[in-house]
């Protein structure tokens, strides 16, 4: 084998390694923690003023016992939690049928000046548990929070 064709092979292998390395880095480098599709309540609180006025996504669990329906049947108030922080939410939309306490939600909206989050797009996030009706959900609040993938790994 001539030197030149070997050099070409070396070049190709180096290129494959670079591409594979970049892909691995995307997977393992932990930049996913920062490039979030939605923010957790803790992250939203941390951002503070910076999050005001822009359209952001907020994700978390609907806090138990927090759901209140307004008189007109449209205004909906509840709180979203990630176990440590909680954000109060008002929604001017009809929630999907699966909306309930303790389920994951992803909300698109804005953080108002008084610290409540207003949303017009309410999405329910189901986790990968599929159970029959008679099965009891033995999972604690922590397990449910974990299913939101708030910490990547």
């Amino acid at each position, binding site marked *: 084998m001539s*030197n*030149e064709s070997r050099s*070409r092979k*070396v070049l190709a292998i180096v290129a494959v390694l670079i591409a594979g390395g*970049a892909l691995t880095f995307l997977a393992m480098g932990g*930049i996913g923690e*920062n490039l979030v599709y939605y923010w957790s309540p803790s992250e939203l609180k941390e951002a503070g003023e*910076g999050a005001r006025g822009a359209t952001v996504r907020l994700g978390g669990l609907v806090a138990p016992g927090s759901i209140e329906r307004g008189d007109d049947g449209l205004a909906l108030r509840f709180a979203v939690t990630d176990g440590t922080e909680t954000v109060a939410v008002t929604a001017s939309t009809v929630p999907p049928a699966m909306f309930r306490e303790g389920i994951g939600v992803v909300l698109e909206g804005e953080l108002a000046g008084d610290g409540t989050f207003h949303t017009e797009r309410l999405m329910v996030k189901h986790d990968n548990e599929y159970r029959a009706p008679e099965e009891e959900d033995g999972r604690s609040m922590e397990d449910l929070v974990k299913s939101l993938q708030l910490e990547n790994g």
Partner: protein
Amino acid sequence: MSTLHPGAAPATTTAATSGAPAPDDPAARSTTSFFATMLTQTLIVLRKDLLLEWRSRSRLVSVVLFGVVTLLLFSFAVGPDVRALREGTAGFLVLALLLSSTLGLAESFRLEQEQDAVEGLLLLPIEPVALFYGKALGNTIFLSLLAPILIPVALVLYSVEPAWSDFLRLFGLWLLTAAGLSAPGTLYSAMTSQLRSQDVLLPLLLFPLVVPVLLGAVKALDLVLTGDAMGQLGSWTIMLLAFNLIYWSLCGIVFPRAIEAS
């Protein structure tokens, strides 16, 4: 047919795939000097392209004009809603770059096609890989030249006023975006420039492929323009960089086979 075939490269031995042994070259070079030659050849191709570009200059002017018109059209599409325009500035800028890039990229092999400028390349023993990186670098530089016009025009049209120190970041991100578009763009324009339906095919192949680059660019530019509450700028830039590495290496591997078949 094979206008782009680099004369001296043995047709059967391509770095990426073929295992066929090359005929033993008496003047076989060592690996180090091979890379040095490669680098020199890349620069030769780049210099030739830039020189040609500079001689005519008409392509640059028309692509810049096209970009400006695109930016103008976005402001009509969104309407006189200053807030919406301001929020969309990053997206409009990246889309203007993307749309202009198809014009620029489509042209990058047409010169070789129409005139017999390829003769010059054929006389030199240019490695296909060097041809690719030279062309891709040329396209990157070409697209970067749009920044000094398009960015200020967009800022004025959409009434955004970033701090002066942000301009360097904006330009850096623009460079990364241009590079991310150029590598797959060069590969695909080498293929499609010889087909009748280049105008349809190049965007059809290129646009879905560069979605990660576009996404990263829009997010990162937006964070620079409207403020970075969560400190995400670094991560988006790294993502942009990572996809650049993937495209630049992967397209470099397959390019020799692509022009071999042309």
